[in-house]
């Protein structure tokens, strides 16, 4: 393995444009040298930003490091570039399963099976998902393919009817410090917010946000702009995004200023979908 890494490194040094970075990144990953693998993947992505395999490699490394939100972005990008990318479809299925969205996990695995009907790992993963098997944290076996790791029980998988409010945003980055779901009256349904100093500010923020939805709706109606879809705000020390998962609920995402408003909107979109599914299951 060390020889592999040396040989691949030499090959890459000789031709930095070469796609050998994919093999080198994977070899380093299998050795558990995640930081080195990440550097290789990022450099590769800079040179080949439209290569689905590069996004897939980067996503697997991020998943290994428990950065699931970013891993999702990368697998999502890989599938946009190459809709039949099996690794990315399996990765997305794994992440959906991890947050308890069995239907989406299954849909992604089914999509993978349509492209690779003879891949036994996909069939196996489908059986596991349908049977409600619990996915482990990918970091427990960094060298394994994400779906393959789903075979080994570890982390609990939420199932309908047993979700509690702390699980609304389970699996999403910032679930307990930068994401909160409110009802129309400003009551907290799930998630939590912490100030940069670490204080729990969930209820205070929720109280001020009550009524935002109606005011936003009235404002855009007066302007003839249809239905409001989001409210982004840039603060001196952080950014926020407010969205409306359903007519009676409000979602708030808060991040530091390092997360630009555009990216925050993407995070909010994902959290909105998660919240919507959670709300549906509560009915």
């Amino acid at each position, binding site marked *: 393995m060390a020889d592999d890494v040396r040989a691949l490194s030499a090959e890459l040094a000789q031709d930095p444009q070469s796609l050998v970075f994919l093999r080198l990144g994977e070899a380093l990953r299998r050795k558990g040298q995640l930081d080195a693998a990440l550097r290789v993947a990022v450099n590769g992505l800079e040179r080949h930003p439209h290569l689905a395999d590069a996004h897939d490699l980067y996503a697997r490394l991020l998943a290994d490091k428990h950065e699931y939100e970013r891993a999702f972005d990368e697998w999502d990008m890989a599938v946009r570039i190459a809709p039949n990318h099996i690794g990315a479809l399996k990765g997305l299925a794994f992440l959906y399963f991890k947050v308890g969205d069995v239907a989406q996990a299954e849909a992604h695995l089914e999509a993978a099976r349509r492209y690779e009907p003879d891949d036994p790992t996909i069939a196996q993963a489908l059986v596991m998902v349908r049977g409600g098997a619990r996915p482990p944290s990918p970091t427990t076996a960094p060298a394994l393919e994400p779906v393959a790791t789903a075979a080994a029980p570890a982390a609990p998988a939420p199932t309908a009817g047993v979700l509690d409010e702390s699980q609304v945003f389970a699996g999403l980055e910032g679930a307990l410090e930068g994401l909160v779901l409110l009802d129309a009256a400003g009551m907290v349904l799930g998630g939590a917010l912490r100030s940069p100093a670490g204080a729990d500010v969930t209820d205070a923020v929720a109280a001020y946000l009550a009524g*935002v939805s109606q*005011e936003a709706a009235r404002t*855009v109606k007066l302007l003839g702009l*249809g239905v*409001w879809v989001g409210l982004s705000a*840039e*603060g001196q020390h952080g950014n926020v995004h407010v969205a409306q998962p359903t007519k009676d609920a409000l979602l708030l995402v808060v991040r530091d200023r390092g997360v630009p408003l555009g990216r925050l909107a993407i995070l909010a979109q994902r959290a909105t979908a998660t919240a919507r599914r959670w709300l549906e299951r509560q009915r």
Partner: protein
Amino acid sequence: MTADVFRQALDLITRVRGVRGAMLVSGDDGLVVAEQLMEGIKGTAVAALTASLAGRLRRAMDAAGVGSSVFWHLQAEQGALLVVPGIGEGGLLVVAVAEPDVNIGLVRLELLRAAEAVG
């Protein structure tokens, strides 16, 4: 502050492609200070609601510990409302109403410039 300064500030914003109008609104009472809006937009009502929304956001953001808002925008299916709040609680709000495909970054820059001009 002369009417000319207000007009020039609003001109900065309305010249951006996709902007349907701009307003200066008193953050204290939600009254229109100056406006350049397309016909059919009810400036006074929009100003009142914008000021109220700005107040809620400011308090929520203060409570969240992210400081006062320096720019916010409300996105809707068919357009957007973009706002740069003036400094302080009752500062002047610089407001733009835009088409859905407007360059938000560009409007933000002009709103900030306008806010500086009238601030």
